[in-house]
């Protein structure tokens, strides 16, 4: 039964290794694979700038539920779907440029709030199982999304732009060109350094979100969420409406994810109507975990370090695979494996440590009780 003492009285170096085992392993893998891939430094800088500006907002959306003790919010997929619906409408109406992106954000916000609220209620009813439920909820919503977008649009929901409809007259096409909205935020204040486009607009937005998150943590609501995240009972005793706070954290996260997906799509310029949001949850969460976050603790550094490490691995894998075995396909499977594996490993590590700590608490409580009883007995003995 050695394990009980592990987390409490561990050698600090060992603790660091275990806490950050995921980023360390990934860093090693990446360091190994970069030279194999044969890609230039300039290529990396260019790719990473793009990916950082494209994905960071989405991953930042994951931070608030972690704060509130909801774990990894697999339900950000719902926010992504809301954003896509906004984009579909804006494209249908023929709006272009920055106004189109802002309008898409505007109309998808109520949808995101609604979906987030629904997700929050469902997750509240599955306390202790939030992550699995969130995960399955994402799949479930995908089905509803399909029913709405593939069958409802053009039918019950009026869509006039025939370019985005399927030949049969209703249902949105598989891939929609977003030329009108392409890179509007990225190019908002155009700046080119050494041939690389620096997306000032997007960077400003991401920076504002970071500032918002830091500020939010200091507000009463933020503090309430942190208390709820620490311990439900303590929060309840302090007068905090635990259920409402949890739901609110999910709503905020969903809305942020909605905007994040719109930012993501404006960078890419095309939307895969039915696939774009599928891997959003997995990749965002994997990136966050690779950045050193855990189910209970995640901060802004985790987000950016995570994006850099995770996406470098993403870029490098196919080529490294080709260099090692001669098949790029190997690298692709490898990076899918790493994405899933990272999540499995982090979750297992977290669950294991949670159990060990719980055991520790229990033993401590039992020992304390025993001590109390002993004291009582000696007191009694004294009296006699």
């Amino acid at each position, binding site marked *: 039964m050695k394990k009980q003492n592990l987390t409490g009285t561990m050698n600090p170096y060992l603790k660091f290794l275990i806490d950050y085992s995921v980023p360390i392993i990934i860093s090693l893998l990446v360091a190994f694979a970069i030279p194999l891939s044969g890609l230039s430094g300039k290529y990396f800088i260019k790719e990473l700038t793009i990916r950082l500006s494209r994905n960071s907002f989405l991953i930042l959306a994951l931070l608030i539920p972690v704060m509130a003790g909801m774990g990894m919010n697999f339900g950000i997929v719902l926010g992504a779907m809301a954003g896509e619906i906004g984009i579909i409408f804006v494209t249908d*109406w*023929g*709006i*272009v*440029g*920055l*106004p*189109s992106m*802002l*309008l898409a954000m*505007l*109309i998808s916000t109520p949808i995101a709030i609604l979906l987030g609220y629904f997700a929050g209620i469902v997750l509240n009813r599955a306390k202790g199982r939030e992550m699995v439920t969130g995960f399955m909820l994402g799949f479930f919503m995908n089905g509803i999304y399909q029913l709405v977008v593939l069958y409802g649009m053009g039918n019950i929901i009026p869509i006039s732009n025939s370019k985005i409809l399927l030949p049969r007259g209703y249902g949105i096409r598989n891939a929609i060109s977003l030329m*009108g909205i392409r890179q509007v935020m990225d190019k908002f204040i155009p700046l080119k350094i050494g041939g690389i486009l620096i997306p000032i607009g997007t960077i400003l937005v991401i920076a504002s979100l970071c500032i918002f998150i830091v500020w939010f943590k200091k507000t009463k609501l933020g503090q309430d969420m942190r208390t709820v995240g620490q311990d439900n009972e303590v929060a309840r005793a302090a007068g905090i409406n635990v259920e409402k706070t949890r739901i609110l954290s999910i709503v905020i996260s969903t809305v942020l994810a909605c905007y994040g997906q719109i930012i993501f799509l404006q960078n890419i310029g095309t939307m895969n109507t039915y696939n774009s949001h599928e891997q959003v949850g997995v990749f965002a969460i994997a990136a966050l975990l690779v950045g050193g976050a855990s189910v209970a603790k995640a901060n802004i550094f985790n987000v950016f370090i995570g994006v850099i490490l995770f996406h470098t691995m993403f870029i490098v894998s196919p080529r490294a695979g080709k260099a090692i075995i001669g098949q790029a396909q190997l690298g692709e499977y490898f990076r899918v494996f790493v994405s899933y594996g990272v999540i499995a490993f982090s979750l297992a590590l977290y669950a294991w440590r949670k159990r060990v700590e719980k055991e520790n608490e229990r033993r401590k409580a039992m020992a304390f009780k025993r001590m109390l009883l002993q004291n009582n007995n000696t007191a009694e003995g004294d009296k006699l």
Partner: protein
Amino acid sequence: MRKRIIIRITLIVVLILMGISLYTIGKEHKVLIDNKDISMGGLTYNADTAYNVRVDNLEIGLLEKDERKAVKVVGASHKIVVEEIKNKISTGEKHEKKFKLKINENVTINLPAMVNNMDKWIEKIKN
């Protein structure tokens, strides 16, 4: 309590107004430009020269006789500038007109009519 409701309703109204203005500012319209003969009320205006066309500072190019070009513009108010070109050289004659587009409006502009300051130089395209 009252104050909260008022604030919320104001917020919603503001958002709706923002939405409408974004829609108007960002809406794409199609503008067709014709350099064709046009007859109105008994009078005929011939398209006998080429014109160099600019819309909103975007160079559309040369429109020869009987040519038609299509342009996408964004927003409500626009400006079109035409320069007469005879034998590949500009004659120096310029015409400029401003026009406003309503939501969902697509228009056709006829160059001879415009150059001659006719009323119906610009017409809505009926879908």
